[in-house]
């Protein structure tokens, strides 16, 4: 009977596997390009990391030399937060690959645990943080050798704690994110958290003074968290109060033990073969009669059915509709700041309130038209059904364009109402010019977007943020059209203003919209033939399994 290979053999094999995956990934032009981009970006980021390390080293020297414990604590907090949060931000809100996939082999538990840690140690962020801690140790050693004797164990335990905590967070997040619904909810929470960041400044302006005592109380509580305890260990040690330093150090060790225990629960469960299947437990559902589809006035039954399907898809895609809600929420945030501020400010510029509406509409437009440049992204395998059915692709794109136009219209109305609340009534001429300009910009973007969607599609996954970007060409095309629209629009506006007749601007926008409408119709008529010719490429990209 064959026995399981030794730990070193298993580790060697896993290392070999990773290496082969990396090398084989370079077979395609995209893989090589990605490597080049990583090297170039890595060099730039590396310089920043080295520079920050020098600053942190100088800072620790200064903190110990001149007795500034808060500075040392602040630096440790920085390292702590970067180590924990940066990998999360980079990987986004998706399920994380881990050594669980290797469990079908006779993998020893110790090897499994080691691999889980290796994932964390060989992470670039962890390497950067270890370098920063080393730089800080160097600074401390120059300032005081006595401080160094406390700094070495404190930093070692803090590094170990970070490693354990990082792995524990990943292990528990993987547990939660194995379920599609939880993944979507956490993703949505992430987006809301990012949006809520916009409210900090306006709320601080408005309620800052009243919140100050609470903030101070919170800051004193932070002292008993690991970075604060590590800094206190060194500070007390340096001051010769070994008892207090020892107590702080014991606290750090206790944190390590607690987090290690939480991690062990997860790793043991994973090793035992915990099933994290996506399949939901079948539940009894009440039988309900099938409802007839929607009847959308003014469009063909096919377009109506497609529109209904796309709208349902939009509302079931938490990420997409939250992204669409972002402009309205940000304008709401600005309105909070505006009401608390004596000056009519938007993003630091002094602007008249008549510009609020055009600016809001421009922002909304940029968000909504992004969808039009990759409009088949979420159709997935269902796209094959559209090719199998007797449907003209013209209708498919028309339905998507109708949806995007209606979403834009709804958002423009929300922005209009909010802007009236923030800056008072918008002059009628501004409303008219803005709507004319938006109509032209929308048609330009839909025309270009329909072609880009067929020529440079990119499949996107529901409820995920990680690596969910349109193709590079789609990004370039989006940017190009915005530059063209912005340039022509600004030119028309300035000429009309110089001539002292803003009606010219409105007529110009409507004229351009008319010309673009003709182009839009022509492109829409071409879409069926183009999609038919490109069906193979479209199905290969958009119907590929996850």
């Amino acid at each position, binding site marked *: 009977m064959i026995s399981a290979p030794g730990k070193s053999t298993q580790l060697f094999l896993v290392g070999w596997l990773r290496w082969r995956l990396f090398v084989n990934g370079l077979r395609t032009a995209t893989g090589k390009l990605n490597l080049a981009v990583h090297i170039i970006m890595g060099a730039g980021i590396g310089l920043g990391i080295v520079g920050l390390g020098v600053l942190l080293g100088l800072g620790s020297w200064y903190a110990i030399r001149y007795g500034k414990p808060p500075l040392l604590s602040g630096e440790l907090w920085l390292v702590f937060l970067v180590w924990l949060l940066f990998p999360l931000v980079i990987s986004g809100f998706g399920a994380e690959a881990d050594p669980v996939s290797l469990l079908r082999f006779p993998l020893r538990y110790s090897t499994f645990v080691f691999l889980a840690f290796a994932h964390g140690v060989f992470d670039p962020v962890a390497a950067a943080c270890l370098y920063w801690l080393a730089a800080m140790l160097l600074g401390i050693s120059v300032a005081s050798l006595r401080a160094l004797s406390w700094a070495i164990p404190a930093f070692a335990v803090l590094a170990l704690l970070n490693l354990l905590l990082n792995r524990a967070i990943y292990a528990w997040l993987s547990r939660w994110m194995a379920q*599609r619904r939880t993944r979507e909810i956490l993703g949505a929470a992430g987006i809301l958290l990012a949006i809520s960041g916009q409210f900090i400044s306006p709320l601080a302006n408005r309620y800052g003074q009243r919140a100050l005592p609470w903030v101070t109380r919170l800051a004193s509580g932070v002292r008993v968290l690991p970075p604060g305890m590590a800094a206190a260990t060194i500070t007390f040690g340096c001051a010769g109060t070994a008892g207090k330093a020892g107590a702080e150090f014991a606290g750090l060790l206790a944190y390590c033990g607690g987090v290690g225990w939480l991690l062990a629960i997860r790793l043991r469960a994973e090793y035992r073969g915990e099933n994290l299947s996506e*399949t*939901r437990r*079948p539940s*009894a*559902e*009440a*039988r*309900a*009669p*099938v*409802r*007839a*589809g*929607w*009847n959308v006035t003014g469009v063909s*039954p*096919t377009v*109506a*059915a*497609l529109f*209904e*399907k796309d709208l*349902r*898809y939009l509302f*079931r*895609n938490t990420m997409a509709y939250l992204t669409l809600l972002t402009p309205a929420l940000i304008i709401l945030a600005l309105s909070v700041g505006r009401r608390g501020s004596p000056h009519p400010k938007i993003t630091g510029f002094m602007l008249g309130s008549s510009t609020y509406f055009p600016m809001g509409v421009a922002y909304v437009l940029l968000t909504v038209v992004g969808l039009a440049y990759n409009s088949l992204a*979420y*159709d*997935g*395998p*269902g*796209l*094959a*059904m*559209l*090719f*199998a*059915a*007797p*449907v*003209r692709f013209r209708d498919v794109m028309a339905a998507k364009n109708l949806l995007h136009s209606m979403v834009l219209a709804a958002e423009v109305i929300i922005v209009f109402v909010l802007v009236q609340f923030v800056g008072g009534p918008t002059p009628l001429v501004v409303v008219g010019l803005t709507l004319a300009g938006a109509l032209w910009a929308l048609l330009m973007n839909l025309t270009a977007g329909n072609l880009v969607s067929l020529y440079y599609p990119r499949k996107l996954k*529901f409820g995920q943020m990680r690596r969910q970007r349109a193709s590079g060409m789609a990004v370039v095309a989006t940017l190009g059209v915005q530059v063209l629209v912005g340039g022509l629009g600004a030119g028309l506006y300035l000429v009309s203003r110089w001539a002292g007749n803003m009606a010219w601007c409105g007529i110009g926008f409507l004229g351009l919209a008319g010309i673009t409408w003709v182009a839009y119709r022509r492109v829409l008529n071409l879409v069926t033939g183009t999609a*038919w*010719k490109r*069906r*193979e490429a479209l*199905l290969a990209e958009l*119907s590929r*399994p996850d």
Partner: protein
Amino acid sequence: MTELAVETTGLCRRFGELEAVRNVNLRVEAGQFFGFLGPNGAGKSTTIKMLTGMLEPTAGQIRILGLDLANDPIGVKSQIGVVPEGLALFDRLTGPEYLTFAGRMYGLDRVTAAERAQELLDFTGLADRTKSLIVDYSHGMKKKLAMAAAVIHGPKVLFLDEPFEGVDAIAAGTLKAMLNRMIARGATIFLTSHVLEIVERLCSHVAIIDRGELVAQGSIDDLRSGVAARQDDGQKLSLEQIFLKIVGGERAAVPELSWLE
């Protein structure tokens, strides 16, 4: 003369250097239950994709119910139903939503689409999962739903790529019942499958493709008698034996593995 449901002439498909399908001339008469067989990588899925308009042939002509697919794709698609390899489901819709959507895509009015969707949900046993999204369905449920969507408009020709793959006996029974009803009302069914017992039980005619070339075509009895004549042992052969003899599965002796005794 019998009407041809599917007819291909000199059908070819290249992928770079690889010639996946070479000069395939298929003839499927209307009303036949037709099995399209072949080993893995023989060109079955490539052929069915071309027949349903999902893949452009490199050369050759496809006629479905007398209509040229290249010249009249919409006309052809109105007459056919397809369950492709990946099932082609919009998995963020519920079952009823998907069926009514499919019905309307094939030109049914809203009310008829809803009525037929209800009937199909009852028939396939999916009527008690009307709120779940398709993404949460089991594989067998997805297959039944894809089949229901393919027949909602009453197609004259039904193309099925591996309809019984990964399906349990109960779901397979439902699918077979649905297919037999289609045949009873005069439809033509063209399916690929690796499960030769099912093909033998359901299909009246088969074609076998091997390394991109059509190597046999006809009724199962014709193929059986042809192969048996060559073998000259008088024994009634199963479809699996016919298949293995035609694609040469028996020629190469199965090598021994030195560590398996």
